[in-house]
Each structure stands twice: as C-alpha cells, then as structure tokens.
C-alpha cells in the first residue's frame, strides 16, 4: 500500500514535469506576452489592461459567477473535442453539435410538458441524443467512406447553423415579431433559484447575504456543476472502462486494435457520437440555464471553435479542460472590460488565445527553445 502510494505520487510528479504541461504553460505565457506587446504598440499600458481584466473577473462574486457562466459551455465543448482527440479523431464539429443540442433542447423544452426536474432531464437527454446522431454522421462518413472528419464536421457545422435558423423562423417555434424562438418552460430551467430570487422572502434573505445576492444576480445555473460531472464522466469512460480502452486503442494504433479483436469502424462512429452528445449537452445547458431559447444566428457563435482552443490548452485531458475553460471564459468575460476605461480593443483576447493555440501547435519550436533532447518521438496528433 505504502509502496503503491509512493509510485502514484511519482507518476503525478512525472506528469507535471512532462513536456506537454510545460509547453502549455509556456504557450499561455507567450500568449499573454504577445497580447501585452500588441497593447503596448497600440499605445495602451498592458499592466493596467491586464489588471482591469483580473479585477473584472475576480473583484465581485457577480463577476465570478459570470466567468463561470461563460466558461461552462466552453468546458463542455472542450470535453467533446478532447474525447474525440483522445480516440484519434479531430472534432471540428462541436460547433454544429452544440447548435443541434440547443435547437432540440428549445423544442423539447417548449413543447413538452413534464414535472419540474424531470422535464430538465428529458430536455437534456433529448438534446444529447440528437447531437450524438449529428456527430455520428461524421463518424459514419469516416468509417464507411473514408471522409476525413475535419472536412465533414466543418460542413456539418454550417448545415446545422442554417438548419437551426430555418427551424427558428418556422411559425410553430418563432416568437412572433422576433428573430427568436419561444422560451422553454420553467419546468425545464436549471437556473438556480430563478423564481425565488424575486419573491419577497428571497429578496429579503438575499439582501442579508450580499455576496450570494451578487452571485445570483446573474443567470447562475447548474451547468457548471454538470460540466464538472461530465469531465469526471469523460475521464472515467476514457480511462476506466472497456469502451474507453477500445476507443483509445483505435485512436493510438488501429492496426494493433484490430489485431486485438476491436472493431475499428464501430469505434470511430461510437467515438464521434459521444463527442457529439457532449457538445450537444453544452448547447442544451446553455438554453436551459442562460438563454432559454435560440435565435437566428448571422454567423457562428464560436462555442465549438472555442472548445477546440480550450481542449488544446487543456492538454486534451478531461480536467485540463476545466482550467482552460475557466481561463478562456474569464478572458472572454473580463476582456471587454478594458474597452470603456482604456478604449483598448477587447479583441486582444482573441489575439492572446490565437497565439496560445499557435504555439501549442508547434511543440517542435518549443523543444528548440528549451533545447530539450527528449526521446525522439513525433508527438503526432491523432487524426
């Protein structure tokens, strides 16, 4: 027992020192430095700007609440990308799967009448199933026709977007005189204490607890808790189940997996379905907790694409996604706050994120910088 513990500790330490995490941290630092340089060139004080962002995220519980709300869908789409990535697939399609999830959640949340709680669960599951099918299409196309999943999912994203727009504008779903759908029923909501917040008792209690009041002054919802549960689930499936074993084996080496009796094509479809379901759940949670419905989208909202960045920054590990999602969510929420006082463009956030991803893409460059003579092995991405 004693011995085992020691060994585990050793392996954790080893992982901390492993090149991936180091590269990620260095990439984040480089991203922030480039952001600072850009701000400096544009004539702003980067220290002031960054401190405004940090204050804008942490100085009030309301801000923290918002950061969490911003982070929640990104963590989950990140998990979707991570799951696919760990099984050898690149899911660029989280965006479309998210849209499908949000659409189905809205429809089921609006039309179906069920008791509180149960309704939310049904909405959540319906969205996941729909999005899993959507993701599964890409898996099927790859398994059956050899269509590269990157291209297939890009196409499916746009099809999902326009399909969702089409559905929103249908009379049965469209809230008259608007570009939005009807809102879901309250029974499907997962916003925390949504009604109670505005009752007399609620108001009174909250006025005595200012921090909680502040925290709940947002559409704070159960999404974040579910995101963490999903992260645990993803970790568990990947690492503790025979399914995860099969999917990872196919991702790492499909020839050996085949030799071990694992069905490669089935695994590819399963993997894309799970990834799709995850991204769809992000869409459902956003509808149930924050937006309550969907609108016509002029373009991509970016939850899926941001999820790719989150997954990459999170080192494509389940728990890394939580941290990367919070980082990204914080930057997305806090970033725009530099605009009013400084007049500094909030898009510096995109530049920071883009830079981080760029440097994560070039581990070889990092290795050159560090001059680390690690084992000669191509950290080939899974594809």
């Amino acid at each position, binding site marked *: 027992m004693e011995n085992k513990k020691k060994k585990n500790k050793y392996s954790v330490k080893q992982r901390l020192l492993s090149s991936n995490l180091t590269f990620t941290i260095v990439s984040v630092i480089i991203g922030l430095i480039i952001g600072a340089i850009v701000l400096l060139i544009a004539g702003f004080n980067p220290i002031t700007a960054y401190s405004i962002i940090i204050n804008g995220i942490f100085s009030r519980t309301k801000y923290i609440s918002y950061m969490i709300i911003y982070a929640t869908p990104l963590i989950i789409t990140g998990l979707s990308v991570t799951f696919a990535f760990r099984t050898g697939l690149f899911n660029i399609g989280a965006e479309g799967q998210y849209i499908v999830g949000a659409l189905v959640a809205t429809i089921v949340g609006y039309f179906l009448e069920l008791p509180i709680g149960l309704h939310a669960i049904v909405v959540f599951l319906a969205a996941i199933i729909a999005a899993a099918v959507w993701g599964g299409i890409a898996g099927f196309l790859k398994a059956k026709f050899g269509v590269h999943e990157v291209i297939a999912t890009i196409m499916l994203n746009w099809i999902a977007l326009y399909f969702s727009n089409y559905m929103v504008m249908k009379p049965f779903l469209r809230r008259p005189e608007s570009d939005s759908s009807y809102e879901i029923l309250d029974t499907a909501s997962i916003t925390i204490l949504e009604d109670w917040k505005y009752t007399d008792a609620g108001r009174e209690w909250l006025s005595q607890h200012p921090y909680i009041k502040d925290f709940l002054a947002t559409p704070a919802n159960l999404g974040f808790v579910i995101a963490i549960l999903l992260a645990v689930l993803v970790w568990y499936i990947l690492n503790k189940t025979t*399914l995860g074993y099969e999917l990872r084996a196919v991702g790492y080496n499909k*020839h*050996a997996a085949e*030799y071990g009796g694992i069905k490669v094509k089935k695994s590819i479809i399963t993997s894309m379905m799970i990834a799709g379901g995850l991204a769809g759940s992000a869409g459902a949670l956003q509808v149930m907790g924050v937006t309550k419905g969907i609108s016509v989208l002029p373009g991509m909202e970016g939850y899926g694409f941001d999820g790719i960045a989150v997954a990459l920054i999170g080192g494509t590990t389940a728990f890394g996604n939580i941290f990367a999602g919070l980082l990204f969510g914080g930057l997305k929420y806090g970033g725009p706050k530099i605009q009013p006082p400084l007049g500094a463009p909030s898009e510096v956030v995109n530049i920071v994120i883009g830079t981080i991803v760029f440097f994560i893409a070039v581990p070889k460059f990092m290795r050159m910088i560090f001059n680390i003579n690690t084992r000669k092995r191509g950290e080939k991405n899974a594809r």
Partner: protein
Amino acid sequence: MSNIDFNHKVVEMKDITKKFGNFTANDHINLTVHKGEVHALLGENGAGKTTLMNVLYGLYHPTSGDIYIRGEKTNINDPNVAIKKGIGMVHQHFMLVEPFTVAENIILGMETTKGVTIDMQKAIADVKELSEKYGLYVDPDAKIQDISVGMQQRVEILKALYRGAEILILDEPTAVLTPQEIEDLMGIISNLTEEGKTIIIITHKLKEIKMIADYCTIIRRGKHIDTVKVSETSEDDLASKMVGREVSFKVDKEHKEKGETTLKIENLVVKDNRGINAVDGLSLEIHAGEILGLAGVDGNGQSELIDALNGLRQVESGKVYMNGKDMTNKSTKEILNSKISIIPEDRQRRGLVLDFTVAENMVLENYHKKPFAKRGILSYENIEKFAKDLIKKFDVRPENEKIKARSLSGGNQQKVIIAREVTNDPDLLIAAQPTRGLDVGAIEYVHKSLIEQRDKGKAVFLVSLELDEVINVADRIAVIYEGKIVGIINAKDADEKTLGLMMAGGGTDGK
C-alpha cells in the same frame, strides 16, 4: 558476352563501416565494380546489403571508410552528389508521383522548357529516345497509377538514365515482379551493360544471379564474406556462402513425438493489397507438440498467410481448420477465442499500442474479460497485478507496468507480446518473425519460449526469414515460394544448402 571493361574501376568502396548505435550494419566491407559489369550483392535479410548501397547513394554517411568513383575519392553526403557523379538508385519502394504521367515523373526537377511552359513534346521525345535505346518500353503519356509495377520500375530506371546515371543500383528489383516481368528486366539489364552502364543489383535470389550477374559479393551479418565470379560458382556454393556453414545459435531441445493435428490449412488462396494471389493454394498441417518452421524469402506470401490466419485478411478460397473446427474467414475475436495466439510480424504496428502502458498492452485481447473487466468497467488493479506477474515471469525490463510500451527496448517489447500470447494458454502459437531486430540475448529468450510451448504439447508455427532460426528451432520445416509450399523436410535432415536452394526457387522448379 561480358561487357566488362577491367581497366575502369567505376566504384570502389574501401573498408566501409556503418554503425547504428551499437549495431554494426556494415563491418569493413570492400566492394569493387568495373565499368559494364553486373555486380550482385547477395545476403540474407538484414545482412547489410541495402545499408551499403544507401551509403553509396549518399542516404547514409559511413562511420568509416572511403568511396572512390572512377578512381576519384568522393564524399557522397547527399543523393544530389550521387546523381551528379552518375549514380542512380532504384529503391525497393518506388518514388513515383502516382497521378503524374510517366514523362512528368521522369523530367521532374530537370524539366525541359519552352519559354515559361514545360516543353512536353520534347520531354516525351527524350523519354521515347531513351526508352528505345535501352529497350525500356514505356508509354510516356500513361499515368503511373494506371501502369503495372514492372512498368513503374522501368520509369524508375529511366529517371536515373535521364539524369545521366552511369552506375545503377537496383534494390531487390525482382521482389515485386511477375516471372515475365523478371525476364524482361533481365533483358533490360543486358541492354544497359552493352551501352556501358554498370549495374549493382541487391538480391537474395540465386537463379537471378546466375542468369545475369558477372560477379557476386556475399555479405553475411554485415561482413564481407567473399567476392566470386558467378560463372565459376555454383548455386550451391552461393547458397552456403549466403547462409554460412557455422551455426550460430545452438538450441537445446529434446526430441518429442508430434501429436494430433491442431491446425489444418487446405488449398488456401489469399490476395495481397494489389489483388494478386499472394498465398496461392497453400496446404499445411501443424501438429500438437511440434514446431513447424516456415522458411522462405520475404514477400512470398508469408505476411498474407498470417493476416488470413489472424482474420485480418479475406480468404478467397480454401479452408482453415483449428482443432477440427472451420475457422475460415472468422472474425479476429472468434479466432483469438479459439485457442490461437499470434505473435505478429510487426510488433510496433500490430502487436502493441505503443502509447498504452505495458499493463494495458498485456491485456490487448482480454481487456473485456474477467478479472480485467466487469460489466464494462476495467479493473486496473487486476490488470496491473496480472502485468506485474508477467513482467516478473518473463523478465521484462524495466520492471514497471505503468510506463508506456514505447519506452521499452525492442527485445522487451517482444517479451511483453510473448508474455501476453503465451499466457493465453493457446493450443496453437503462431510466431511471425519473432526475433526480427532483436539482440542475441533476446533471440535466445524467444527461442526458449517457443520450445517451452512445444514441450507443453502445444503446436507452434514459426514463420521466419532467418534460415538459422528455422533450422535450429523447428522440428519440421516447410518452405514457401510464391505462395505455395514447395517442400517439407525434417529439421534434423535439413541443410542450409538445400533449403537455400528451395527458398530461392532454385533446384525445385516450383514443384
């Protein structure tokens, strides 16, 4: 008949040594080739022939030794230098752009232009002229993807000639050709030497050497064994020089009576990736308590046979019975569940998931069975305990089940596979080239494991390209040639000469 000009030594390789880490691929090899000569490099797989030629072509840099081209000491550090010096190489795996035409492939990098455009007319005319001069008939307008392998090889030769090659290295040029194409190639080689070209041909097929080569240099285990005049040497002599008289690995094993038939293969036909019958009506029986060795030169259908037995390749016709049960075209899972274990040919591609831990690799076929998993949930505790036991028992180093398989040495990787397969308690153990790339100690270990299985009364099917190995380890030896068994002999009656001849398709005439 001979076109050799003995006054001109075009290639002299002196004392060439090439080491990869601790492994010496070439050990002070000397090679002299005259103008107009066809010089064969003969040796078993892994003897160091291709390494030597890669040194000559500038793909590898020799650890020590000098190269003289036309008497001039030359430092060939890049294929471009080799090309400038008039050396051309036709690799075993062709370097051709599939959707391009023949002419486009030939002129690539040395395009003929007219103004800003490529002068395709001139290119085609040049190609035609070259091909007529040497009898290398090709259609300059045909796309590579549409022409046969033999044609593709001609394109490779033309590519070299177009660049003014005087010395042509052909690496196993007949490995991928049909008998008719081989005959054509022999004609082409004669034409080339008549025009004063020099040919170095890497091969281990004796017949071809007798047919075409003037001189033959034999390499064994990286060492220069002999250079002989082919016309004065018999196939028998070449064979024995190739495989060596002295037996390097003596394996202790007691005689054992063979038992019931375990695996029965009847008239098996399996196609390769190109759709050609690689296994072509093969029949074989393997008995309990014996090691049946399958000897043969690479590319005679061994890989396809193993894939078919593994359920990874479709059987076109014929039958496979395991313990009397029809296993033809069953799924891999069913096959693995019918007491067959396979040590795959390519351990890194098929045998291991390199990014999995050693423990995870130990259960690659059984991860879903108790005690490793229950209702879809893995028990890492049991998997790791199991792995730990095996690591101890099979002496895998380092003794850590949690590290990735990638970080193990080749020998230890193979131990992981053997441990896994043997522990499955199979009735039939198929070992495909189980010692490839291993060092002496590891080889001994693998051999011991196989014999242990036999002594337990299991059937063992050893497929190997190493003749020594087959002779020493197996009880009976079947020789495969062009997808058929051309003969079966008892190992104790076997001698390298006979086997070498059979493997090279010599002496037996196919039947």
